[in-house]
């Protein structure tokens, strides 16, 4: 391949090909492969599901079945930051719903929605295991605890 053609290859494609090659023939590879493919693409486009099926020799129907069963997998593009608001028991009891309401108003989206500027995807989850600081939310891998509706704006502003 010449230098010009090399530039035309999507680096994500190369990463996916490497990923599939690395897991070829391994038992139980589907879920880890989908997790890593989602890290590469940010979500799981239909074409990626098809290529994962071909690469692991699994019918694409089963790949789709798995991708839609687990909450972690997304078939549509996600925002740059994923905001998971916890509504587990402890957060529910300590007023998580009010915090969620404020976030929904600030962002103008509901559960599963992504803001128009692609800045946030909002998800409601049941327990992120930081119950001692309820109510809580998690933005990407960062946990924010002891929330009150008036703290929300300041925290959201920290994320581009």
């Amino acid at each position, binding site marked *: 391949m010449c230098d010009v053609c090399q530039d035309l290859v999507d680096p994500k494609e190369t990463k996916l090909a490497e990923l599939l090659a690395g897991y070829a023939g391994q*038992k*139980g*590879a*589907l*879920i*880890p492969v*989908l*997790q890593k493919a989602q890290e590469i693409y940010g979500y799981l486009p239909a074409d990626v599901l098809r290529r994962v099926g071909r690469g692991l020799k*699994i019918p694409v129907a*089963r790949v789709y*079945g*798995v991708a839609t*069963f*687990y*909450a*972690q*997998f997304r078939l549509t593009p996600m925002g740059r930051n994923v905001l*998971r608001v916890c509504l*587990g*028991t*402890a*957060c*529910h*009891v*300590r007023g998580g719903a009010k915090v969620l309401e404020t976030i929904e108003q600030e962002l103008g989206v509901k559960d599963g929605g992504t803001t128009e500027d692609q800045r946030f995807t909002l998800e409601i*989850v*049941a*327990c*992120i*295991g*930081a*119950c*001692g*600081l*309820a109510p*809580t939310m*998690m933005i990407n*891998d*960062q*946990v*924010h*605890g*002891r929330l009150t509706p008036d703290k929300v704006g300041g925290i959201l502003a920290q994320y581009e």
Partner: protein
Amino acid sequence: METMKTLLDPCCERCTHTPETPCRDYIRCLTAGPLCHDDPGCRAKRSGLLAELRPTQGSEEGQQILVCAGTGCASSGAHKVVSALEGELQRQGLDSEVKVVATGCHGFCEQGPTLIIEPAHTVYTLVKQGDVAEIVQKEFKEKQRVENLLYQDPLTGQSAATFANIRFFAQQTRVVLGNCGFINPERIEEYIAHDGYQGIAKALQEMSSDQVIEEVKASGLRGRGGAGFPTGLKWSFCRQSAGEKKYIICNADEGDPGAFMDRGVLEGDPHAVIEGMLIGAYAIGADEGYVYCRAEYPLAIKHMEIAIRQAEAAGLLGNNILDSGFNFHLSIRAGAGAFVCGEETALMASIEGKRGMPKVRPPFPAQSGLWGKPTNINNVETWANVPHILRRGAAWYAQYGTEKSKGTKIFALTGKVNNTGLVEVPMGMSLRKIIFDIGGGIQNGKKFKAVQIGGPSGGCLPDEMLDLPVDYDTLTRAGAMVGSGGLVVMDETTCMVDIARFFLNFSQSESCGKCTPCREGTKRMWEILDRITKGEGKEEDLDTLEHLAHVVKETSLCGLGQNAPNPVLSTLKYFRDEFEAHIRDKTCPAHVCAALLTYTIDAEKCKKCGLCARACPAACISGDKKTPYVIDTEKCIKCGTCLDTCKFGAVVRA
């Protein structure tokens, strides 16, 4: 020969241990060695490194500041405190004498970030960056405590300086959590310095597989994940199954809302889980294992990955471990977000790369589990108990607990209680003691109403049940269960109908859909409860609910469906009057269910400031400087903003 940098380094060229050429005495040698030769120089090197890792009171060696960097404290700013401490120690010229260690969870989440000064054992709570300079100066230069930063008991108002004086810790028995908060979970040598891997060393050197199983049976350990099945017996089923290839799995898919003890153990003491699994694998005859951890716990996964790599490098995972001929390989699988995968057969389907749906049993996993091979699953806390049993003996372990529930149990204490956090107590302690002594009672002086125990599979218990001893059998009889150990405390402002609806909403959305009773039944139950909270409940609803609950319980395929009705049945049993108030009087006694509330303004108390009218999102409050404000109840959306805004208490909610 280079000098020893870490405890794991060879003391001199006479030490030949590597993963490829393992030495059977390796673990004992690290803490009591060298054993194969007598050399005062080698001995001094080892004991010097040990002293640094095991600080003793009054000694200048091993001075450290242990900062809780578990997920809770990290979100409260622990990492900023760590860097501030490091900077301050350098500034005061103490950085070579005093180490700052980011540890796993101390358990006192409510008071985080917390730090412990060793060897003095002083505990500081709610530490801010600004406190750091004073703490370093007083503790290490003046050898004094910073009195005004110590924890103050909310009940007595007195300050307490050490774990032994803080009621939250003083009444606990920390066995499984013993290392959490005291060692650096990212360094295997700290675990080894605290007697780590001695259980597996003892098993491999002195005991047969059957003897290990007998020891675990004799300890009385029962599964900590919920069902409470005797662990030793479970192991023996898998051991007796025919077949060369067997698997063991650590269930770290801790999905119960309100439970985070497994997260605490994985983040704070990951090697304890690995050692427990090694002992189990040796007893059962398995050579491969998985840790299935939920993806929501990134720090737990990170610490476990580091721990596995270190154990492999030390020759404690892999082939011919400690020259015993025993092989064991361990890997991690991250869950992908499905509560039902906490069920054994669904979890195994997920590891196989399938949709996580439970299977009909029999065959049981012990006969045909992962990839059709005999498989044994235990949860994190169960595995982490095992090294203690092997090291200290079954009799030692069995001294804790009740006749049929032995040992200690970790509870995640949350909700409307003063001291939230992780609490480890002997089985059989009363709920009242856990909530009111250790937990410090109810927040803001409110009245206790219920404690929800055991997550979506458990139940809500009222005040009159609080003196029950917490053990597997007593709680099941009361209509709740130990479950994974989540304790969510509720006060008078919690509506029990709303709570029942909350749990059914959780169960119906997490139902995998394979069996009809769970898929349809939980949804119908949720619909009825939702109607009741909206004031549309009918007199016959409660009978229908109870009937449905029993059908779902008796006919569902797996534990999720079989236990999903428990929160409804227990609230109906103990709080039936609240359901009746919603249905008959169309009122919510706890003032939670929005549709049943009315907001009015007390004209006497109204100062006519107009704050409420400006804040009202529905623009349904009218009035002016001369006439008291009134709420148009027809237009009111019952959001409660006016109640929160009014400074004179003029808004009345009924």
